[in-house]
């Protein structure tokens, strides 16, 4: 069975593939609460990923996981650019290997946190039920 990389789709990514044939490949996860593209990896590409990123592994779903965020980002960029999940998009990803590895090295130290409002939980934490 071919393994795949799941790319989660937020609104920005959904817009980027709107109207393309890639849009037809979108799968629903968790009852439609999440959208994703399951991009199948040919044996050669899988081998490249596993060698390039030592943290990567295959999970129980058959998904290649624990790859750098930068890999997923560039994989999506190339899929959107080529309007395809085929070989040409994957070759373009591999041609950007140095860029991905450089970004991945930085990722080990820092990942930008999402810019979301967390004041509601900070408010809840002001009155903890358990006290020191």
């Amino acid at each position: 069975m071919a393994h795949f990389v799941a790319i989660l789709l937020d609104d920005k990514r959904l817009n980027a593939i709107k109207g393309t044939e890639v849009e037809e490949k979108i799968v629903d996860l968790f009852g439609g609460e999440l959208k994703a593209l399951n991009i199948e990896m040919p044996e050669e590409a899988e081998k490249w990923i596993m060698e390039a990123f030592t943290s990567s592994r295959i999970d129980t779903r058959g998904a290649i996981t624990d790859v750098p965020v930068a890999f997923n980002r560039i994989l999506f960029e190339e899929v959107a650019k080529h309007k395809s999940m085929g070989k040409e998009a994957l070759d373009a990803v591999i041609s950007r290997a140095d860029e991905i590895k450089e970004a991945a090295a930085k990722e080990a130290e820092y990942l930008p946190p999402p810019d979301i409002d967390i004041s509601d939980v900070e408010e809840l934490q002001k009155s903890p039920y358990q006290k020191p």
Partner: protein
Amino acid sequence: MGLLFERPLPHGGRLVERVVTDPELGKKMAKGCKAIYDIKPTLHYETGVPVRNVYREIMSICYGFFSPVEGSMKKAELERVLKERRLLNEWIFPYPMLFDISEEDYKELGVEVGDRVLLRLKGKPFAVIDVEEIYRINPEEVATRTFGTPEDNPEVVREPFDKKHPGWVIYRSMNPVILAGKYTIINEPKLIPPFDRFWYPPRKSREEYAKRGWRTVINHQTRNVPHVGHEMLMKTAAYTGDIEPCNGIQVNAIIGVKRRGDYPDEAIVEGHEMVHLAGYIKPERHLVTICLWDMRYGNPIESLLHGIIRQNMGCTHHMFGRDHAAVGEYYDMYATQILWGKGIPSFGIPKPVNEVPYGLQIRAQNMAEFWYCPHCREIAYSGCCNHTKEKQKFSGSFVRGMVAEGVFPPKVIFRPEVYKVIVKWWKKFGYPFCNEKYVKEKEERLEVELPDMEV
């Protein structure tokens, strides 16, 4: 036999408490010491990254989490634990507890059997060890025997342990000289926030259960920020009990060095706390607690320690899932449930842990899996839901990937308030998970501060 379950006695019959709370007495004990040793983190034998700090073991022993163990093990006890998972006094115990120092430090200390050594932490007096025996170990041999081998433990060990296993690395990275003897904390540390409000050593947890009117308590072991699958596991497992569901649900988080990719300890404890602050479980029924221990990821072996810790805390039940406290595929994914369900003879436990002499009293609640079922439109238990083709698993790596990409998780995966706790600590540490920087900084900071003590 009565139908009501009573709070179990501590493992070994009585709680070990080796903490001097009178500073004057502490000073007096410190003055009688032959030598002073500054506690150092155990560093990975190849990379030099911290993998353990023995202070956590001293804390857990002296506050009674590991009762009946009272200190660093003598050679005969180490052998017995490795062979039969028993202490010399017969009680079941899974792991070697060792105070290890380098040959250079041993030479410099110049201690002998009968001496008392002052142990300093963060430059301040912390504890003493009364040296009863000094011997040497081969760390690699101890590491391998601790976790077992496919040849010696064919019931559950599937692959030989190696340097990819963080628990094996901890023992492999130990120093060769062992000072054996009892520990006593002479300068009581203060837990720092956010850990202070989750610090319930066995005596205090038992008092807390009594205060809350909890007779039956089920424990949830964690090293994770809880996703909704964990929450459902807790709620569903808690339906067990005796004539009624368990009165209390205790979360006990293992706090210490973790592997890369696990969540920071601060996010773990506050994530669990948020489950009751945001009302998903009533706070009156939910208690978040911690135990200091550098997790060994030893699946069935680790589950024994977890059972001991939680029985000492007063729990009547313990939930165990698939791949309990596991990493990789070294053990059978149901090894823990095999141990508690029928025993593992090659580990010295030929019957369920509750049925062997000097075994445990805490009852196992072995649980299978939870997944999201789009057909049922709910978090479903694998023993019930038959939509196996449609199921969507809570794969840890999938969830980590989603978090790392900054995707706001849907409510069926993370409660939004719990996810925001991850983000809170992500903003502080610049990273959502444990990485090398976090581990190094945390191992300098630790979880405690010590009061000044002039000696």
